């Protein structure tokens, strides 16, 4: 369960998030909204990259006072809208960076990484330099990074961007497995409404930094406010 309480973020005069309060209690939840609505900003706040007012908690544990790297060690994982694997490390080493910072025996860590590579189907590419991966493989590696080291919150920022429908399908399946494998709560931002509909039980809709809807995904998408602001259905109609 992820709780955001009264989160406000300002950039100079612009209010990117305006007193947003929300509780995500599904295994996989979505965040949607028009461009610039504040979705990425929300993830950045959760990661601790941006100063904000308000409070962030997970399963009752407040994490908003922690530095970003402490949150990561605590169990926060995320991908970026512009993915950011270390190009001069192998896929395996990209995972190992996370485990390096965590306690645990070497053997457990190796097993942990093996499982992540197995699940994502990257086992054969484990020793390939990240620079050699194509877009899809990089997304898979992102997922693998989110599987290691006992994650508690996992966040994906537009994971399906630039993927083909089949790749999106497969990636969606992987994301759905995360909760079962690790117990982590997952947040997904994407503009692919089909993907959100398929994998997210509940969805938050932001517009101009404000929460305009929250609830079961199907219900939220049927909301006329959401349709007007995001899907543009009536405009087309």
């Amino acid at each position, binding site marked *: 369960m992820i709780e955001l309480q009264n989160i406000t973020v300002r950039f100079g005069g612009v209010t990117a998030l305006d007193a947003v309060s929300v509780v995500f209690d599904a295994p996989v939840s979505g965040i949607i909204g028009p461009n610039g609505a504040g979705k990425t900003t929300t993830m950045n706040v959760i990661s601790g990259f941006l100063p904000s007012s308000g409070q962030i908690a997970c399963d009752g544990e407040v994490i908003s006072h922690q530095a970003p790297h402490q949150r990561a060690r605590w169990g926060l994982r995320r991908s970026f809208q512009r993915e950011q694997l270390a190009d001069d490390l192998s896929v395996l080493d990209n995972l190992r960076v996370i485990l390096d910072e965590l306690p645990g025996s070497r053997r457990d860590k190796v097993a942990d990484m093996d499982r992540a590579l197995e699940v994502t189907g990257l086992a054969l590419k484990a020793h390939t330099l990240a620079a050699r991966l194509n*877009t899809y493989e990089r997304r898979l590696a992102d997922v693998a990074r989110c599987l290691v080291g006992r994650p508690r919150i996992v966040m994906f920022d537009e994971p399906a961007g630039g993927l083909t429908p089949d790749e999106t399908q497969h990636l969606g399946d992987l994301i759905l497995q995360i909760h079962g494998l690790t117990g982590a709560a997952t947040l997904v931002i994407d503009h692919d409404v089909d993907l959100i509909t398929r994998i997210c039980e509940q969805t938050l809709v932001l517009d101009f930094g404000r929460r305009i809807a929250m609830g079961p995904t199907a219900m939220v998408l049927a909301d006329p406010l959401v349709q007007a602001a995001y899907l543009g259905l009536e405009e087309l109609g």
Partner: protein
Amino acid sequence: MALIIEDLTVVKQGRELVRSVSMSVERGQVTAVLGANGAGKSELVLAVAGMLPIAQGHISVDGRAIQGCPPDVVRLAGVAAVPEGHRVLSKLSVDDNLRVAGSMLAGDQVGPAVAEVYALFPELAERQRQLAGTMSGGQQQMLSIGHALMARPKYLLIDEMSLGLAPLIVKRLVRTIESLVDKGVGVILVEQFTEVALSVATSAVVMRTGDVRYSGPASEIRTRPEILEAAYF
């Protein structure tokens, strides 16, 4: 009157990322380029734009050869490319980004051209003074497309047009493409959302690992999706 790519090969670090690819688009037509990841579509776009060296092949615009020309000459020749990954001039404001993209227009043309882009993307108009680097991913994508539109091109190449854009915007863009095509612009559209691409395309090219696997009318792919499937797997 067409943008013609013939026998194009692109080599990067000893690997042939694009191998003898030929395709063309006429003024007022849309060619969709489809294919799974790593097919070499982005490299193709960059090569046409003059951003990657070409190992072999010819590219011509309305009969004039442009292969080997630097990017600014290619754009002056009327070909505007939107590269993948919403690239913007991060330290310049939105307004300056658009103005500088209008460098080849006559001085009095710049204002109206900027206004047109703002009309298409009111989201940008609200943020004229904001530094482009601080905008959200989708906003940067709009700006990146705005760059290309500023040149009032004869041919437009867009790599991953819908990447990071809200459905509402994608719909709006599709209509814009259609109206550009009506005005006689030739468009090459690289898309993962095949639906979107095929809804506007007249012809289609399907690529896989650097090769062309299919080239023909778009309608055929719409009716026979197995062509695509073959290219994807």
